């Protein structure tokens, strides 16, 4: 962990703790006010509780040019990203992507190339539908490890996080509370429910909360689509392709549309927002990540629309290449934040229970 980032966040948190005007905005302040002094773990936990809604920045009497120079959303955003990088495993990959949008694009190109190569070299082995381009066994051989290895990596990082923030045994009540907050994204609504300050200075709006919900629920629908297809294939012996009126297709098409629109909306909002109130260094990396995620959704839709045409093998390579890149980069890009945020909300539920 970078001690200068933690120290700056601690300096600011101590000023906040003597003020307390922002107590009603989000989960950060009640957690902050529960302490008199802040360990590195406390600061890391506060950083991961913060959703960067910026309400506290625009309400603050002590922002620059005031000599206290408070910018808590930015200070916590920097600690937050540093915490993901510090906990990530394996370390050589930890700091390659969050602050390097070009590296994410490069990884995407590599992902395309790998899938084109796989289709060319392995081929169909006599399958139908998409399996006419790449055999089912080949897909499993590529994507099972590409899915499971990042999860294992995240697990290692989260264990380190949990240790540092003093997490204890998790009870069902902690989970219900944390998942409830995450499902509604309450911390992006502010205590008064009017939303956050993002795309137009101090104007409260639900814009960011809604596009973020679109991304999250769109992604979860797509994930549910793949999961149901896996169950249908292995449990019910019903291999793809599936008709439109089937669970995988309904979930996937709806999810893909929501995910794509959500990512476009997020990029538009981010372009209007003030980068200095977030982790300015990670702006490019975050944008590239959102674009990648949106592209996963969009290319999936394109593949569905043109799956019967001659463009199918190329589209399949492009879509699966994007998915592969997305999965493999999960522990090392903004995607990690979802897991850490949830961990922080669970830890916070333990504090108040």
């Amino acid at each position: 962990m970078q001690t200068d980032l933690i120290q700056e966040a601690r300096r600011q948190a101590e000023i906040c703790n003597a003020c307390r005007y922002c107590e009603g905005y989000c989960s950060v302040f009640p957690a902050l006010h529960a302490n008199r002094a802040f360990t590195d773990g406390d600061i890391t936990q506060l950083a991961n509780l913060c959703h960067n809604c910026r309400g506290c920045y625009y309400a603050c009497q002590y922002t620059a040019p005031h000599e206290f120079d408070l910018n808590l959303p930015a200070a916590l955003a920097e600690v937050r990203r540093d915490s993901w990088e510090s906990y990530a495993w394996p370390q050589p990959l930890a700091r390659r992507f969050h602050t390097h949008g070009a590296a994410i694009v490069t990884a995407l190109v590599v992902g395309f190339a790998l899938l084109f190569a796989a289709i060319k070299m392995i081929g169909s082995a006599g399958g139908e539908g998409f399996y006419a381009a790449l055999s089912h066994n080949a897909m499993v051989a590529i994507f099972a490890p590409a899915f499971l290895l990042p999860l294992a990596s995240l697990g290692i990082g989260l264990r380190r996080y949990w240790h540092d923030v003093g997490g204890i045994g998790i009870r069902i009540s902690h989970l219900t509370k944390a998942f409830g907050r995450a499902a509604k994204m309450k911390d992006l609504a502010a205590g008064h429910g009017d939303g956050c300050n993002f795309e137009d200075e101090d104007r409260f709006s639900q814009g960011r909360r809604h596009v973020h919900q679109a991304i999250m629920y769109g992604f979860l629908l797509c994930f549910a689509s793949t999961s149901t297809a896996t169950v249908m294939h292995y449990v019910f012996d019903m291999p793809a392709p599936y008709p439109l009126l089937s669970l995988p297709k309904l979930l996937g098409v709806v999810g893909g549309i929501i995910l794509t629109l959500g990512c476009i909306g997020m990029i538009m909002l981010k372009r209007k927002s003030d980068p200095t109130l977030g982790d300015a260094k990670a702006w490019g990396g975050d944008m590239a990540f959102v674009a990648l995620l949106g592209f996963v959704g969009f290319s999936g839709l394109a593949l569905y629309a043109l799956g019967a045409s001659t463009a199918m093998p190329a589209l399949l390579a492009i879509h699966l290449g994007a998915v592969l890149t997305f999965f493999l980069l999960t522990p090392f890009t903004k995607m990690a934040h979802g897991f850490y945020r949830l961990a922080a909300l669970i830890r916070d539920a333990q504090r108040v229970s």
Partner: protein
Amino acid sequence: MTHYDIAVIGGGNAALCAAMTAAESGAKVLILETAPKAYRGGNSRHTRNFRCMHTGPLGPLVETYSEDEYFEDLLKVTKGKTNEALARLAIRTSEECLPWMQDHGVRFQPSLSGTLSLGRTNAFFMGGGKSLVNAYYRTADKLGVDVLYEAAVTHLELSENAVQWVDYTHEGKSHRITPKAVVVASGGFQADTDWLTRAWGPAAQNFLIRGTPYNRGIVLADLLEQGVSQVGDADQCHAVAIDGRAPKYDGGIVTRLDCVPFSIVVNKDAERFYDEGEDVWPKRYAIWGRLVAAQPDQVGHVVIDSKSIDLFMPSVFPPLKADTLEELAALMDIDGAKLKDTVETFNTACGDTSDFHPTELDGVATSGLSPAKTNWARPITDPPFYGYSLRTGVTFTYLGLKVDENAQCSTDTGPIKNLWAAGETMAGSILGQGYLAGYGMTIGTVFGRIAGREAAAYAN
């Protein structure tokens, strides 16, 4: 150039309430705010709550708070130096203001941690006063109010009991406008150290200003020189004892110290000078500004021991810390032997401390000591010892414009037909001395709305 019906001088709560009210009546309004946008809002940006009468649960407020109880609370702090008619008008009208504030974008939150005693009487703004100011600027903009930042009003030409024109500078140029009506809501003069010094003597050089550096009383002085009726004494102000390391201006809420009741406070000669445990801190913090101002070099030194360090809200700057009283005295730059002697004398006067209770008047008092400490008197014995310096922090001054129940200003020869005042610049019309938490915002909101209503009625 747009012709404005009404010029509002100032950009804080009272000014915004006046501007929005007038704009809703159809008047074309210009706000002349002397601060840059980042510092707009005057002292309102540092406020946190609104004291509000209510006959039943209202917004974030629980139970009831009657007009009479509110007025009695006010009388206690002003020791009777109160204009009853205007005070009661402000109190009575506060109840209808709260929903009006919500309609104009203000959001409230439950009473802050550490302020539970105010949960019935004071409605806290979510995010504090700057968020209120932000919301009001947004609403004013929607209502068509124009705002000029860094627009410093230099003169209001008064003749025949009317304001003839308003001069101001903006972006290095002088401008003159001739609005039909003017609302002055530009605060007190506390940021003008020379003026404070004339009123207080050289001691004022050591005062800290808790709020905006832009309240220099320029418009107030200009109007008083032209014979506008004044009210209040120049040496009366809302002043509290704050952390001596606070910035000269704009330190705001975080510089307050809540440790006095658990301490002894000595002056630079290491002598105690007042009962630190006279009452619970929310009822006493406002007198300590004047107490410290009366000490040599206008400084006080708080001494506590490790028993008490966690009993009060955390301070923005860490306390001085030492293993012995002599070392602590050295950090405070006062006589170590003398401090030790003062502490030992105090400790000897302490009695049974078994009834000590940090949040209630516990009656744990000294005996045979002058001045006595009448509550929370526990010996200071357990190292490490902690210290803070106290200085006088001025919030706002009471010398101001005298107004009537319509917020209208006057001269000896009668009302000025197109001049109204609201907020701290006329708060002296109601408060003669002392202060009640959240009442400044009540005065600003109530009289801001009245001034806006009356100015619009005149201009239309």
